[in-house]
């Protein structure tokens, strides 16, 4: 079968990203030809400013080198400008006569700088700031000339001015409006920014209209004259007054264009064979000039080019960040506000800090940050997710550290990446410091948190520092940063579907096996990966208990071997002690096992159980058999499952106790035995509000009071210390079991894999849980019954492994 032909005109970031996404989906569908007017392969245009500033070099910013085109079988024509499209004959023609036929044409022609129509605009020394050639011209001029004038104080103009200043030129920025970056900043923030740029040596002329560029004796530009008659010297004039979508080619072929090539939500133009992405495309009336939206377009466009036909592009909320070293400005969304919005403002001019949050109803719709932009990424995420901020409104201004997106430990309490030194450790698990992350982002052209994880390992283990890494990414790539929409995040690289979609499909289509799910949801890998398989296995057995078959090969080794793997490949064994109670007989059996199998370490776990560490895998069934003789079963210290119910001594012995905490603890732990869950689940029962069992940091905490019990949920003592939230007060033991079960079953049914209860509650809101568990007794009862049904006839896995030869094979070694 002959391949279809795909021709791409324009070899920039949007187009190449579309090809990359396409090749991921359908590597063999098309024979691809690319035309680029510039003589270079695709490079990272947003990093031209660091190149100009002397912080990076040109080879550093190439995104797709020539090898990439060759390896993917793409014919690349650089330095060839396409001048004509023959839509009837489905062909494009370049200036030099090169032609190419297409079945599908992708226009990614980008934009051109707008050049002010003033006399002298064509003089030598007058340039725009758009590509490598402009950047090289500026670097060369800075070596030989003194006076530079930048017209336009937008993002690009200021970055150009800063770069030229760093290269030793005397730089004046001329701007028509009354304050700089008026499209990104309000006046208060802009004034602060102007002061800091002036401190760096830049001069500003605001409210000035250019009248003429005046030539000197050499014929090169020498001065600039304004409408008010003032004249200043200028050996170099950089026009940075805006961009215009390049639509000439499309328009000459009769493709409908209005301030950009008009595309629909699938990035298709009025000619169904022709698509357009990037700065040249006008989607719902907007042509975007920042990278992040272009990447979103690329993903959707690739999906349609691959003939998958799913996904729509519905527009982007954008954020901007000025890439001038030492200055932090961030803005996103509707930062000016209007009649329907309210503002929260923090202004500290001497401290050099200004923050404005624009709120509409109960959502954040815009933000401007100056001086301290550490929370920019977090605000942007809230804004994009349209998350309800009603509950956190009173401390929203104080940022994510006060609202809980960064873990507490592992990065020396740092919550603001901007203030960290390059040598400071960001990821305490993998020992990655800030400088390493910044270097990888720049040199490898990374744009997403997943790419950073893959290349540096930062935040890829416990995830506590994810917020910090996101901040570093956001400040390094500036406007190209795009937080994932947390709710729609795909399960893993094997699928486009989110956890929520997968859960819904399993329930609605009554899917019972992992291969069924992968078929129904178009998995791109034959048997998934180590991330999605355990998730799918959990979703199946929690949705269809006693019906879906548990798949041991899709469980992490700990859950397959019913013990915790240690760094040397040995395992640890934790026998269950209901409610934390034990007997001399059990302790004797544990001591005997420890001696018999030369257990090197015996210690108490965090959940107050006894841990036998350093047991060989082959010994596990024997150890379990011995412990089983004394009546002990698996403690599940290894599972995404019920772990322990910690208890204080309660009114059984304690002179302050109001309730029988130990017996309540035993009842809860016996009821929940064998419960698999999205992540581990820990409970505690205290007999009085002194709370010796530390119920305030448990997934479910029960506190005895004279008139009954208080139930708290979604506490966490780990990565991010979270105090459990009050759910309700009940009067009887039976009610404790029912309410705790209903909450846990709701979490089991709605939680995403590896989401602790605190993350689940942060996502769905405690009000959602209350509305079901507290306000709807029938549903509460049904949840309770579903949990009890799922746990029916659960067999102790240790005993099963001891009794069944087929299960024992897992623990046996072959000899040769």
């Amino acid at each position, binding site marked *: 079968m002959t391949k279809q032909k795909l021709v791409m005109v324009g070899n920039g970031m949007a187009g190449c990203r579309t090809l990359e996404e396409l090749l991921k989906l359908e590597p063999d569908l098309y024979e691809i030809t690319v035309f680029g007017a510039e003589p270079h392969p695709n490079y990272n245009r947003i990093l031209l400013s660091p190149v100009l500033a002397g912080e990076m070099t040109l080879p550093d910013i190439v995104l797709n080198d020539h090898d990439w085109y060759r390896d993917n079988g793409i014919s690349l024509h650089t330095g060839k400008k396409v001048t004509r499209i023959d839509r009837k004959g489905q062909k494009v023609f370049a200036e030099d006569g090169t032609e190419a036929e297409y079945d599908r044409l992708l226009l990614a022609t980008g934009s051109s700088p707008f050049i002010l129509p003033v006399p002298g605009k064509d003089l030598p020394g007058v340039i725009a700031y758009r590509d490598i050639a402009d950047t090289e011209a500026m670097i060369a001029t800075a070596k030989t000339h003194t006076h530079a004038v930048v017209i336009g104080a937008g993002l690009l103009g200021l970055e150009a001015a800063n770069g030229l200043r760093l290269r030793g030129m005397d730089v004046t920025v001329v701007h028509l409006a009354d304050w700089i970056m008026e499209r990104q900043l309000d006046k208060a923030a802009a004034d602060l920014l102007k002061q800091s740029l002036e401190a760096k040596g830049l001069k500003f002329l605001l409210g000035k209209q250019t009248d003429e560029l005046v030539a000197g004796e050499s014929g090169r530009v020498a001065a600039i004259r304004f409408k008010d008659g003032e004249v200043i010297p200028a050996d170099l004039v950089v026009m940075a007054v805006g961009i215009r979508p390049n639509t000439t080619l499309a328009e000459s072929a009769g493709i409908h264009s209005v301030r950009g090539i008009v595309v629909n939500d699938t990035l298709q133009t009025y000619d169904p064979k022709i698509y357009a992405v990037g700065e040249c495309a006008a989607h719902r009336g907007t042509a975007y000039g920042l990278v992040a939206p272009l990447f979103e377009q690329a993903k959707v466009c690739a999906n349609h080019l691959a003939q998958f036909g799913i996904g729509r592009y519905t527009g982007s909320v954008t954020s901007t960040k000025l890439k001038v070293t030492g200055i932090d400005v961030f803005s996103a969304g509707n930062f000016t506000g209007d009649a329907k919005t309210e503002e929260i403002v923090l202004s500290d001019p001497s401290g050099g800090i200004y923050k404005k949050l624009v709120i509409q109803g109960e959502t954040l719709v815009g933000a401007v940050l100056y001086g301290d932009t550490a929370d920019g990424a977090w605000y942007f995420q809230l804004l994009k997710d349209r998350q309800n901020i009603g509950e956190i409104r009173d401390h929203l201004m104080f940022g994510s550290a006060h609202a809980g997106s960064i873990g507490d430990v592992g990065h020396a309490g740092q919550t603001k990446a901007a203030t960290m030194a390059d040598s400071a450790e960001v990821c305490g698990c993998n020992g990655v410091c800030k400088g390493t992350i910044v270097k990888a982002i720049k040199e490898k052209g990374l744009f997403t948190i997943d790419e950073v994880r893959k290349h540096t390992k930062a935040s890829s283990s416990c995830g506590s520092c994810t917020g910090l890494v996101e901040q570093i990414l956001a400040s390094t790539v500036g406007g190209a940063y795009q937080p994932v929409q947390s709710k729609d995040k795909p399960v893993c690289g094997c699928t486009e579907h989110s956890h929520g979609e997968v859960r819904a499909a399993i329930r609605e289509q009554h899917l019972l096996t992992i291969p069924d799910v992968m078929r129904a949801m178009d998995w791109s890998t034959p048997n998934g990966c180590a991330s999605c398989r355990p998730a799918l296995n959990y979703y199946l057995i929690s949705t269809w208990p006693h019906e879906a078959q548990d798949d041991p090969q*899709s469980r992490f080794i700990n859950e397959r071997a019913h013990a915790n793997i240690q760094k040397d490949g040995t395992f640890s064994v934790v026998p269950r002690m209901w409610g934390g109670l034990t007997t001399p007989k059990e302790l004797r059996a544990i001591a005997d096992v420890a001696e018999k199998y030369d257990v090197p370490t015996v210690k108490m776990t965090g959940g107050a159980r006894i841990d036998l560490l350093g047991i060989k895998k082959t010994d596990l069934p024997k150890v379990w058999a011995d412990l089983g003789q004394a009546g002990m079963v698996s403690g599940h210290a290894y599972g995404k499952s019920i772990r322990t119910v910690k208890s204080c001594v309660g009114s059984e012995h304690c002179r302050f106790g109001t309730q029988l905490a130990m017996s309540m603890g035993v009842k809860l732990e016996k009821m929940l035995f064998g419960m698999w869950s999205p992540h581990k689940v820990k409970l505690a029962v205290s007999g009085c509000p002194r709370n010796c069992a530390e119920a305030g940091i448990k997934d479910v905490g029960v506190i005895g009071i004279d008139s009954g019990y208080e139930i708290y949920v979604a506490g966490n003592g780990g990565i991010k210390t979270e105090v459990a939230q009050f759910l309700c007060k009940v009067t009887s033991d039976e009610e404790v079991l029912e309410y705790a079960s209903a909450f846990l079953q709701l979490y089991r049914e709605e939680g995403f894999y590896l989401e602790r209860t605190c993350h689940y509650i942060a996502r769905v809101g405690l009000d959602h849980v209350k509305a079901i568990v507290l306000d709807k007794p029938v549903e509460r009862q049904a949840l309770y019954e579903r949990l009890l049904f799922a746990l029916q006839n659960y067999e102790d896995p240790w005993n099963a492994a001891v009794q069944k030869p087929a299960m024992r094979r897992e623990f046996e070694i072959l000899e040769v």
Partner: protein
Amino acid sequence: MSDWKKLCPLDEIPRLGSRVVASAGGDIAIFRTADDEVFALHDKCPHKGGPLSQGIVTGTMVTCPLHGWKIQLGDGEAVTPDVGCARSFSVKRVDDDVWIAL
């Protein structure tokens, strides 16, 4: 000179799973893919020595249980960006039995 030795019937290795073989040169992990292909690697991750036999098998790859390195079953090479290699051994199937060359 490699010396072929009979290991076990294929169905004693779980699909998308593995078994461990004790050998003089250290443990060897025998893997079986979804398509019943069989591979053998030195049971030590090139990263920090984790037992690859205990990892999750997907396609023709295994993910080390300790720190999540992905190792290709065919040649033992780590998947980029990680760099390292676990020694591989020849294995073959004769009828329903699995053989290894040591």
